[in-house]
């Protein structure tokens, strides 16, 4: 098997995970990405989605936005909010979807509107995925 990549998942509240993994799939704003050791350096923002860590065991986390810094040996995800999938509460997500659609209705400019629409769509996709 190829070299492992070290992976940190941090949220403002705590460090959720810090370990070596074979591959991590992250929900980049411009598409899902699989990251392995030796990846080209990339900085990307994240959309709400699921992060899958494939190492000795597979772990899945729900992240709600944030960004990721990737280089050849290390991947750091700074998530706005990150919760292990097992602990994730679908009701909380529904609440957020409700809030997002309310804020969409309040959006003033077009760019604001499209940004919020994008966020809402992602939340809904995530809702289906769970």
């Amino acid at each position, binding site marked *: 098997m190829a070299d492992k990549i070290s992976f940190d998942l941090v*949220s*403002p509240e*705590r460090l959720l995970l810090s370990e070596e993994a074979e591959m991590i799939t992250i929900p980049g704003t411009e598409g899902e990405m699989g990251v392995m050791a030796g990846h080209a*350096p990339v900085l*990307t923002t994240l959309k709400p989605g699921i992060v899958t860590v494939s190492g000795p065991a597979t772990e899945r986390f729900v992240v709600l936005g944030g960004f990721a810094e990737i280089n050849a040996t290390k991947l750091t995800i700074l998530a706005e909010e990150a919760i292990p999938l097992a602990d994730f509460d679908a009701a909380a997500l529904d609440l957020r979807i409700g809030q997002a659609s309310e804020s969409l209705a309040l959006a003033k400019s077009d760019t604001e509107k499209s940004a919020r629409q994008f966020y809402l769509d992602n939340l809904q996709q995530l809702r289906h995925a769970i």
Partner: protein
Amino acid sequence: MASLKSLRNRIASVKATRKITKAQQMVAAARFRRAQEAALAARPYAEKMGQVIASLAGGMKANPGASPLLGGTGKDDVHLVIVATADRGLCGAFNTNIVRLAKQKIEELQAAGKKVLIFTIGRKGREQLRRLYGPQIIESVEFTAVKRIGFANAAAIGQRVLELYGEGKFDVATIIYSRFRSVISQIPTAQQLIPAPVEENAAATPGVVYDYEPDEGEILADLLPRNVSVQIFRALLENVAGEFGSKMTAMDGATRNAGEVIDKLTLLYNRTRQAQITKELIEIISGAEAL
């Protein structure tokens, strides 16, 4: 000499005080552990965020189209000082130290001819600053009702600060809080929030060339406002840890002092009582001898 009754009353009241300080100390100790963990857990995020922004900002600062959160408004006239303190007292010089640094900073800025606006977080800070700078306090937030400070609390403050910035109310924002080092040591710190500080050496190192997805400008536009909230959040957590640490030390000292006072008063009480008994005995004996 104080009467026996008044001594008894004083002993009882100091004992009650000791019970209170002891209870406060134990509560602080219990909450301190959690607060410390939270503060330490928040550090990597805030530091990483700072690094990423610094590496992005290096190339962007000279760019005239850069976000005002990075390049500033081009002026340096109005300063917003965000003073983060605790909501409660009984924690030694913790609040006073923060306020002292804030006052010093405000005086410096005013001496340099700048206009200073104040945003207070926490009740104690507002109370102490109100007397001197009442009209300059434009906003205050308290967390008396909040049990545990979450990122949402900080994000709300960040939002408000950004709104004020967007309205052009100030040019530079600095947050003053107490950096937590240990139970007995908290360091009042002033940190510039807006425009985002860029360290010279960070910009100078070439480092790895990153690909950006979406492009640099968009990432920065996304990160910079978030960074404000993150740094505020971090400041709040460090403050909470510092507050409880300081409270533990202060209350420990107070409990010990109360114990000493009780010992002294008890000794005095016993002596007085003994003296009184002796006096009465002498009176009886001399009365009997006189017969």
